[in-house]
């Protein structure tokens, strides 16, 4: 019996007793409940709705102590049911550190490897992708994205050719900070992409107007970056308590509140919070378990947060 099976049994038992749950028991129930997975529209493959970003957090160079610690963060990620890890050649040493961590963990089969191509020359794209593969230690990426729409015409042609050859399963484009949404929309309308990545959180909601409906209409998976606005949204709540009604959808902390808001949007496939701490990773991963808010509750969440 592994930990998950044990906890599933424990969860069933506790549910039957219908007694008030302690924090530990509630945690156990939370872990035992199934993690929410959503389908990638172009294939139907289901992936966990909480992934992991690596901007800043995994850029630690060849610092042995920091690399060992980040490997523990990855261990927590996979232990809690994680799949997608997103990085980029623009993130300094992040890809090398991820590759080092994956090697320490024996390359978990649950990995959904997503990186980007980030160079102004289309001709340099294949070499950069090959370098990223070597750094990650993967034979092929699940998802390759054009970073910040840089030279996207040339890179998308490369990525589509790779997909046709079976050297990558999905292709996509990214932007962040709410930039270049008009161009992003044009690409989504005209290019056969599987994924689009943009900033979406409880405060930055511009994508709800056009990008998310278009993603749903065109069958494009959506990755939400900057779910905490690089920690600023967590800082904003400070020590304020969660509203009691957050417990109705299994929410016990503010990171969970913020992440559940994002991944409960019907057109969002996953969010990619970044952290360098194991305890924060566990907090993030709890957000994909224990129920999700409905549309009315999501509006209530946004109003609650705006009033802080």
């Amino acid at each position, binding site marked *: 019996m592994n930990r998950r099976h044990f906890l599933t049994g424990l969860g069933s038992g506790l549910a039957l007793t219908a007694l008030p749950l302690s924090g530990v028991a509630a945690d156990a129930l939370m872990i035992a409940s199934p993690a929410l997975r959503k389908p990638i529209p172009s294939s139907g493959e289901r992936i966990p709705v909480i992934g992991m970003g690596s901007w*800043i957090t995994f*850029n630690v160079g060849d610092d042995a102590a920091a690399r060992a610690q980040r490997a523990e963060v990855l261990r927590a990620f996979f232990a809690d049911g994680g799949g997608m890890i997103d990085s980029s050649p623009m993130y300094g040493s992040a890809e090398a550190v991820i590759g080092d961590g994956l090697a320490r963990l024996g390359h978990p089969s649950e990995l959904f490897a997503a990186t980007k191509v980030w160079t102004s020359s289309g001709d340099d794209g294949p070499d950069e992708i090959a370098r990223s593969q070597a750094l990650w230690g993967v034979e092929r990426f699940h998802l390759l994205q054009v970073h910040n729409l840089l030279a996207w015409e040339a890179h998308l042609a490369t990525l589509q050719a790779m997909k046709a050859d079976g050297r990558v399963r999905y292709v996509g484009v990214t932007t962040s900070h709410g930039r*270049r949404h008009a161009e992003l929309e044009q690409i989504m309308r005209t290019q056969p992409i599987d994924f689009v990545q943009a900033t979406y959180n409880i405060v930055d909601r511009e994508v709800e107007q056009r990008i998310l409906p278009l993603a749903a209409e065109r069958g494009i998976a959506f990755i939400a970056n900057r779910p905490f606005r690089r920690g600023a949204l967590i800082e904003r709540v400070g020590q304020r308590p969660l509203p009691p009604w957050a417990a109705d959808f299994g929410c016990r902390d503010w990171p969970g509140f913020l992440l559940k808001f994002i991944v409960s949007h019907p057109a969002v496939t996953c969010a990619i919070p970044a952290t360098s701490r194991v305890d924060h990773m566990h907090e993030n991963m709890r957000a994909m378990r224990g129920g999700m808010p409905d549309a009315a509750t999501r509006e209530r969440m946004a109003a609650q947060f705006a009033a802080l």
Partner: protein
Amino acid sequence: MGEWGSYDLSDLLMFSADSYVRLFERANRLWPLALLLGVALVIGLWRRPAGASPSLRWVLASAWLTVAISFHHRLYAQINLAGEAFALLFAVEAALLVLLRSSARPAHATPLAATLPGWLLITYALLLHPFFWFAVGRPWQAAELFAIAPDTTALVTLGWLLLRPMTWQWLALPIPLIWCIVSALTHVAMREPLGILVPLLALLALGARLVIAAWQRR
């Protein structure tokens, strides 16, 4: 400006404050070399108080080259895409310090009072600045030592140049000043506003040096 204008300074920061501090902890493994260069610097300043000892140029150039290689190239470039450019900048400063010799005769030596800002800056850089960040909780292993840490090395060099007469040698001033500003921007992006103290002290010392020299010429 276009799209770039919409970025905050912190959006451009690609590493955490913790990772930045770790650079100093790791770079400080070279502390014996830093101690050697620091002692050589103090002896040189002691023997020729106007900073005129020829060996000082070599000591300072060695310090800049050490920072270029061991800090910027070896460590900082791993987490900052601009790291190699900083390494080049520091190597250029090392070359300038060697090449720009002052031919000023004793008659044109810096008046004693005008050397005061330079001495204060050197004293601060060598004795106080290495431990400045302890105030915000940095570990002692991350002390910013002369010939290892770029800020301290830049401040010492600025202090030494302010001891010197205003000759071609002052062409070595811009790079340390530029670095002090880069450092301050980095610290501000890391939400460590105290970092603006570095360029502030440098500019204050430079301003004081120029004012005192001008006043004495009247």
